[in-house]
């Protein structure tokens, strides 16, 4: 069983402070949905409101079309996985997993059977008699998932459960979480500040900032067609060129910035609509570092400009080249490690290019990082 979750104009306030403001979203049955945002953006508050640990001060939460107002966390068809997992340290792994059955009065044999089934589901067969502290971080993660699944929830809520793991394990657990979700087929609502996690696992992502939803969409949609400067800079890396509109031709916009004249596409507003600009509007043009190429690379590009070289940074699979236009406008370009860049530090000017299809123009607004 799986249920959809609908938030209708949900606000959660603490005194005068709104941790979540007027959030509306419909999460589909069986969907892997992520709330992505910086710490303090209100995503955990929303999750607690969905799980029933706090009540929204305004608006409605529907799970499976049923209003959840006044229903406590123990009576909602949801199960929450805590950031620190909150496994019970004094109980064995099997007792942890079967705790929800124990408090419902299920017999011992039945409990053990269910625990073993769930251990198999999370690939921990035969570990039921161990104590929690005898398990590794990744194994504990899986015990927490098994424990949450034991009550057969219709919606699983996950509060940054991977944040305590190291990088390799985190990447492995992403795939695993996604597989478990497909196997059990229930709705997963995932909270994270890590855009990599959100992009790799989710069907859809809601980007939040300061208690409000900035954008809801598929991973591709959020990454490629950011609706606000915040989304453009919070999800992935981006170069932001401040400029003014010099000409508009349909969806294509000419932006003059720092003496250059760039061609770029107008940003998406969702539902097939685009932002409309007129001459002299103040705008920001966003181009991702991986969409900017060195001039001698074999890529299509209709924008060509030059920038002064500043530094190069080796990241393993790719190299980040830092440059600036007239010492003011910073430009960052990421190229594959295979690209030869040995001459770059010697040349004062670097010729760069990008395609107008990869550049997005948005009205001026706050960025995620300054």
């Amino acid at each position, binding site marked *: 069983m799986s249920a959809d979750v609908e938030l209708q104009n949900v606000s959660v306030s603490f005194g005068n402070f709104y941790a979540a403001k007027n959030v509306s979203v419909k999460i589909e049955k069986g969907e892997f949905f992520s709330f992505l945002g910086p710490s303090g953006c209100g995503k955990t508050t929303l999750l607690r409101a969905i799980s*029933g640990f706090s009540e929204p001060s305004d608006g409605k939460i529907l799970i499976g079309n049923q209003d959840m107002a006044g229903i406590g966390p*123990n009576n909602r068809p949801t199960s929450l996985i*805590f950031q620190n997992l*909150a*496994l019970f340290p004094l109980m064995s792994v099997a007792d942890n997993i079967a*705790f929800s059955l124990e*408090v419902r009065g299920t017999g011992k044999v039945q409990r053990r059977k269910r625990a073993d089934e769930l251990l198999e589901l999370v690939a921990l067969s035969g570990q039921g008699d161990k104590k929690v502290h005898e398990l590794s971080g990744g194994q504990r993660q899986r015990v927490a998932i098994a424990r*949450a699944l034991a009550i057969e929830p219709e919606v699983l809520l996950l509060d940054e459960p991977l944040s305590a793991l190291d990088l390799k394990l985190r990447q492995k657990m992403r795939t695993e979480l996604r597989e478990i979700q497909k196997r059990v087929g229930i709705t997963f609502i995932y909270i994270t500040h890590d855009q990599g996690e959100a992009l790799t696992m989710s069907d859809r992502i809601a980007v939040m900032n300061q208690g409000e939803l900035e954008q809801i969409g598929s991973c591709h949609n959020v990454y490629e067609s950011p609706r606000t400067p915040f989304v453009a800079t919070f999800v992935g890396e981006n170069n932001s060129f401040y400029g003014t509109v010099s000409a508009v031709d349909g969806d294509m916009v000419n932006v003059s910035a720092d003496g250059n004249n760039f061609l770029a596409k107008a940003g998406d507003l969702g539902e097939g609509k685009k932002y409309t600009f007129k001459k002299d509007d103040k705008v920001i043009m966003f181009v991702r570092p991986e969409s900017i190429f060195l001039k001698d690379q074999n890529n299509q590009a209709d924008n060509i400009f030059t920038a002064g070289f500043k530094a190069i940074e080796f990241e393993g699979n790719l190299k980040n080249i830092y440059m600036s236009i007239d010492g003011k406008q910073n430009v960052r370009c990421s190229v594959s490690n295979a690209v030869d860049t040995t001459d770059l530090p010697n040349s004062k000017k670097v010729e760069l290019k990008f395609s107008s299809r990869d550049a997005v123009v948005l009205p001026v607004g706050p960025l995620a990082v300054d």
Partner: protein
Amino acid sequence: MKYFFNKNGPLISTYLIIAIGFWLVFLIIIPQLYMVDLSFRPNIPPLLRGGPDDVYTLTHYKHFLFGSETSGESYNYVDVGVFRDTLLIAVLITLINLCFCYPIAFYIAKVASPNTARLLIVSLIIPFWINELLRSFALRILFAGEGFINNVLLKLGLIDSGINFIAMDVALYTGLNYAYILLMIFPLYNAMDTLDRNQLEAAEDLGSSMLKTHFRIVIPHAKAGIASGCTMVFMLTAGALATPVVLSSPNTFWFTQLIYQWFNMNDNWPRGAAYSVVLLSVSVVFVLLMMKIFKVKIGEIVR
């Protein structure tokens, strides 16, 4: 030892060794050994001490069990009865104390906001600035035949004549419960404070009722604190003197009152020593037995 000196420097190391050594040897071991030794000696005038009559004897222990040699009873039912009642009531008081303090400690540790918690702790401590004897007398005034409680009940018309709380030992039990309440609350509070709040929420999310969460999560976590609080309250209640002297009914004797009588009124120090050795050793054995039954290790208690 060498590591200890290197780590703390000669001055602090010497101070620590002397201070702890003094405490252990002069304030605990020597007096208690003296007391044990005294309990096996006959009660003879000072002049005869060290003389031919001063030999080790079990007479005082015999007296505790079987009474004076002239009595026809099969055992000393007065003293043994007082001893038994004292221990039973001390156990009862400990359990009541635990039931009473558990919710308070839990509220302070896990429910109250930090400011409320501080306020509650302060208001628990401040009454204990008042001397134990004075607190007992204050309770006596409250519970007296013409006391505050009776007056209120009479005025409200709930009773027709005053209730003799003292004779019913209500005053004594209340006083004993109140006397060591902090020694129960603080170990409980310390133990519960370390419990991760998420554990409680996780249990709730998994469908556990409040009661079940306490039995499965909170009590196992706080077990060492519970044991520590119960041990202290039991030992101190069994050994209390001031409160029973002030609050007990004329018919109720606390075992410490007997000890006090042998020491002071009957001037029989060896017998008093024997009685206190009996009280101490039986209490310690009882506590160790309880710890064994509830699987608490002594190391956990001091944690």
